[in-house]
Each structure stands twice: as C-alpha cells, then as structure tokens.
C-alpha cells in the first residue's frame, strides 16, 4: 500500500464519522455510557478491595506468655516467633497495655472494669502479625507448638467468618467487573455492527467497482479506533474529575478508621488506560468483524 493511500484511508475513516453522523453519535454515546459504567465500577471495586485488605490486615495473633517466664526465655520465644514462616512482625505487649487496649475497646462499659486494674487477669503477650492475613491461622498453629506459651488467641471464629465474607465480597466484585466488561464489549460491538449493517450496500458497491477487501477495511479500522477514542473521552474526564472531587472533599467521610479510599493517582490513570483500551480494541474489533461479513461480493 502506498503512503498516500494510507493517508486516504485515515481521512476517509474520519470523514465517514461525519457522513454517518447519526450513526456515529449513537455508537459513540453507547461507548461513552458503557465505559462510564465500567469505570465507576472499577473505582468502586478497587476501593472495596482495598477496604477489605485493610480490615484483613487488622487480624493478629495474640500469644500470651506463661507466667514466670524469664526475660531470656521471653527473648528466645520472640526469636522463635520471628523465625516462623509467614510472620511479618512480632510486638511485645505487657499485660497492663493489654488491659488498657481491652478496656478501651469496651467503650462506655469500660468504667465498670477499672477495678480489674488492681488484679489484672491477663498475661504479657506477643502480638504476631502474619505476612498474609490468610496465613494467620497457620501462624497461630505453628506458634502453639512453641514453649513458654500460656495460650494463643486470634479470634478464631470471627476471623474465619471475616475471611468468608471478604472472599464472597471479592468474588462478587470480580464477577461484577468481569460481567460488566463483557457486557460493555458486547454492546459496543453490537452497536457498531448495526451501524455497519446499515452500510452493507455501500460496501458491496465498493467491491463491485474494484476495491480490495483491505482497501475497504482500512477506513473502517480507523473509524472503529476513533469511535473508541472519542467514546472514552467523556468517561475518563468524568471519572478522573469526579473522583478527584470526591477525594479532596469527602476523603475523611468516606474513610472508616484505618481503611481510607485510595488516592487519585495512579488509580484514575490506570482506570483511564483500561477504558481507552477497551474502547479502542472493541471499536476496532467490532468494526472489522462486521465489515468482513459483507466483503463477500
């Protein structure tokens, strides 16, 4: 193909958007609205995922030290804990600090327990954080084999249920995003196909006056690409702008304790890349596959 022909195809593809302005508008708005929906969901799901992770990170193993363990033995235990697989960190928590933490967590009931301070029922403890929240149980199990240990607590039931919930949430999120992306691709290419079916006759005429398949296909390729690009502009702008606004104005309200919503960058950049990628790929793909049907003349 000569250079001027390539330039011609590019120009023709662009012109065709204008020549079929109604159809182009319909296609671009379908791309726009679907990418917007996909973008919003990506934002939500990615944030949900990070929330879930924060919650999971909070899970820890409390290893209570046997009464009467010497300082040296205690250091030995600490080292052994640190040497366990999947252990991220080991922190010492004296029984007084432990009681403080406990009483704090009881809220208004706490006053009633102040009396406990005189006769602390707790032991000193090591707080062990697993490198992966899902490894917590394994770590607790491994730790239970060590000596100088009074008891081990990691909220077995609660943790198990938590992981159950987060697993379900993650699966739902993944299914939703995957389903929506599929839907978006299907609908975008469906719409593009409709605009091209309407031009079936034109494609056939081109073939009858001696155009090769590739000569016909190229402008459609360009057209599909432009549909994708133009269709991605508004969703990208809206999502980046909207998220930026939410983040700067409501970041604190949207955060719960430790779990914060993700910063604007690089998240919106990544999502923008995904959106324009979907737009362009599906645009080109929808366009090219639909043309192919009508090339057999």
């Amino acid at each position, binding site marked *: *193909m*000569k250079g*001027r*022909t390539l330039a*011609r195809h590019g120009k023709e593809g662009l012109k*065709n958007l204008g*020549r*079929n302005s109604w159809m182009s508008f319909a296609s671009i708005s379908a791309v726009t609205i679907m990418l917007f929906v996909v973008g919003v969901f990506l934002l939500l799901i990615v944030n949900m995922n990070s929330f879930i992770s924060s919650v999971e990170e909070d899970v820890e193993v409390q290893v209570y030290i046997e009464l009467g363990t010497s300082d040296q033995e205690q250091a030995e235990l600490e080292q052994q804990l640190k040497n366990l697989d999947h252990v991220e960190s080991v922190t010492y928590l004296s029984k007084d600090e432990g009681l403080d933490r406990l009483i704090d967590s009881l809220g208004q009931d706490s006053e009633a327990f102040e009396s406990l301070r005189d006769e602390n029922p707790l032991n000193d403890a090591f707080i062990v954080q697993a490198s992966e929240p899902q490894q917590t149980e394994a770590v607790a199990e491994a730790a239970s084999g060590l000596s100088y240990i009074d008891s081990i607590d990691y909220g077995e039931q609660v943790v198990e249920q938590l992981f159950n919930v987060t697993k379900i949430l993650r699966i739902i999120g993944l299914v939703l995003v995957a389903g929506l992306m599929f839907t978006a691709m299907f609908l975008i290419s469906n719409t593009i196909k409709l605009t091209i079916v309407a031009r079936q006759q*034109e494609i056939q*005429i*081109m*073939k*009858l*006056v*001696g*155009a*090769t*398949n590739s*000569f016909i296909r190229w402008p459609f390729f360009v057209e599909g690409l432009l549909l994708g690009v133009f269709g991605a502009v508004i969703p990208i702008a809206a999502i980046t702008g909207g998220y930026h606004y939410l983040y700067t104005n409501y970041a604190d309200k949207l955060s719960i304790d430790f779990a914060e919503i993700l910063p604007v960058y690089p998240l919106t950049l990544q999502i923008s890349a995904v959106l324009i990628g979907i737009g362009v790929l599906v645009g080109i793909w929808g366009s090219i596959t639909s043309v192919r049907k009508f090339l*057999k*003349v």
Partner: protein
Amino acid sequence: MIELNNVSKTYANGVNALNNIDIFIEKGEFVYVVGPSGAGKSSFIKMIYREERPTEGSIQIHGTDLMTLKEKHVPFLRRKIGVVFQDFKLLPKLSVFENVAFALEVIEEPKDVIRRRVMEVLDIVKLKNKARFLPDELSGGEQQRVSIARAVVNNPRVVIADEPTGNLDPDTSWEIMEILENINRNGTTVLMATHNREIVNAIKKRVIAIEGGRVVRDEPKGDYGYER
C-alpha cells in the same frame, strides 16, 4: 476477449435465467445485447464482472478463467472492466466527484491525476458543475451519467453498460453513444444491454439477442429485435 462456454445460471430461488450460452467476443468489439424484459441480459452481464457466478459452464476474460479465479483476485479483474449498472449503484454518501474518483483511488492513482481525470470525464458527461452534489440531489438521468463517468474514468479494457440510456433523453443518449464509440475506437471492448431500438438500428454493430435465457440471434451489424 470474452468467452462464454455453455454457461447456465440458476438463481437460488430456482429461476433459470440463462441456458447454455456460448458467446465469443473479440477484443475491441462493440456488442449490443437485446431482449425482452427479464430475458437474462443483466444476468449475462453480471457474470462477466463476476457479480454472479454461473451454475454451469466456463467464462474467460482476457485469458483469465473466472471459474478458477481466486476470491482475492476478483477486484483486479473488476478494475479492468468498467460497469454502468442498470440501477447506477452510486455511493449515496459520496459526492459526484468522490463517486467517480473512487474507481481511481482503488488503483492508487496520485491525487492530482485523479482530480484531473475525474473533472475531464465529468466534463464529457456534462456534470462538471454538479461535481460536489450528492447522488440524491441529482435527476435520474444525471445519476445515470455519473455511473457512466465512473465506468470509463480509469480507461478500462472492457466497458459493460446495462441499459445506459434508460433514463436519458434522445439527445443525451446520442452523446453517450458517442462516448462509447470513442472509447471503442481506442481499442476498448464495449458490451451494452439496451432496449433502445432507435440507437441499435442507427449505429450498426453486432447484436446478440437473448430471450428466455437463450441466445436467439447473434448478427454482426444487426437490427434491434429478438424474434428468432
């Protein structure tokens, strides 16, 4: 050189449009194809530029066997054949200029050559001043002349015209005939399906008469008519 051997055509709906056609057309000939409505003239013509394929028999154009011609080589065959379609087949979204230019763009001519050649041809069919119009903004005869312009713009070796004067007044028809005679004089084979008795009887050329899908008469310098 166009050669049809024992060609038959049956459409998908069962209509038997052509039966055992044997025709040999020399390079540079001028041939009228006549016959009543529904005789099979367009079917015959469509097989030459391979819009339709015969159900039986074989066709050769300038040494190319259409029966074994690969799909991807069909466009190159069509570029050697200029076709005036009975229903014009203009691209509705393209201007008159762009429609005619399209036949040159597919053979990747330079832009200035396209421009010059298209305006030349539009001048010949008297549509230079309507170059920027869309087909919808033209009268029936004007559309037909655009189709004629597109057929001849790339100096094809064969011109096939299906009823090229059906929507034209007698004067314009004569002018179109002059164009066709001119390119024929320069060596182009011309094949023209027509109902125009006046023209066939005045400009004497070979006449192939088809009726009911059979060649019923094939005379050099014949008259209009298709009775056996």
